[in-house]
């Protein structure tokens, strides 16, 4: 059960860009393992498609996570 993870912008700090994470069942467990707070996740993609953070994950899935950007 390996999930490939791509982190963007500030989420890379202290974690890296491309990661492989094992033994997680869903998005929430994944970010917990990465020590990312849920409020720091604005957009969560699984295999290039928008998904909710509670989504079930399966081996081989590729997850991309973006932080919230709100300035103007």
């Amino acid at each position, binding site marked *: 059960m390996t999930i490939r993870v791509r982190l*963007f*912008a*500030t989420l890379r700090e202290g974690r890296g860009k491309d990661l492989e994470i094992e033994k997680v069942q869903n998005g929430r467990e994944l970010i917990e393992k990465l020590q990312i707070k849920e*409020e*720091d996740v*604005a*957009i969560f*993609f699984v295999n*290039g*498609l*928008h998904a909710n953070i509670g989504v079930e994950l399966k081996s081989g899935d590729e997850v*991309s996570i*973006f*932080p*919230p*950007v*709100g*300035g*103007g």
Partner: protein
Amino acid sequence: MERYLRNFKTITPKEQEKLQLSKVCIIGTGGIGGYVVEQLGRIGIGEITAIDADVFEESNLNRQILSTTKNIGQPKALTAQERMTLVNPDIKVNALHLAFDETNGEGILKGNDVVVDALDNISTRIMLADFCAKLGIPLVHGAISGWYGQISTVFPEDDTIRKILKANLQKGIEKELGNPAFTPAVIASLQVSETIKILLGRGELLRNKLLFIDLLRNEYEIMGI
């Protein structure tokens, strides 16, 4: 008209006429919005409505194109209007020195062909997207934080904004990262390009897509929404 000679052949004279008959509303005339007004005014959008409740402060000078040492304390929206009378007196600019909110949103947006999101907080963006959906007006979303920015083009039937912004957040990572000079200029230019393509009905739009830009690492990622 000589003013628009260099617009041709990027756009045709007929398309130029179409822009002159178009109305675009820009919500926020700070970092992003200042550049949006500048570009839409120069290309020749016939009627621009610029809204901002703020006045210029010294801390705006690092990035907001409309701010100068001489207009600190002046309303941003009115400054946008004054500048456009110097740049392109052939267009009409309506300046609204007020906050966009639940009570005035519909009246402000109604009748516009495109709305440009140049706001500085997340909750108002969600309200703006709801108004645009209700009124059937395309919205061009843009936001920045430090080296990072994002844009997306949202049509009334799309649910993009609620998917990419979190309703329970007011600010994003910009509260730690600040906003430098170059990021709003990049995002504003992309929003203007999207606006022009919507108005002219050509090219490809970032519809149901999010373009996320990382200027620190030169990464430009387009994701499907």
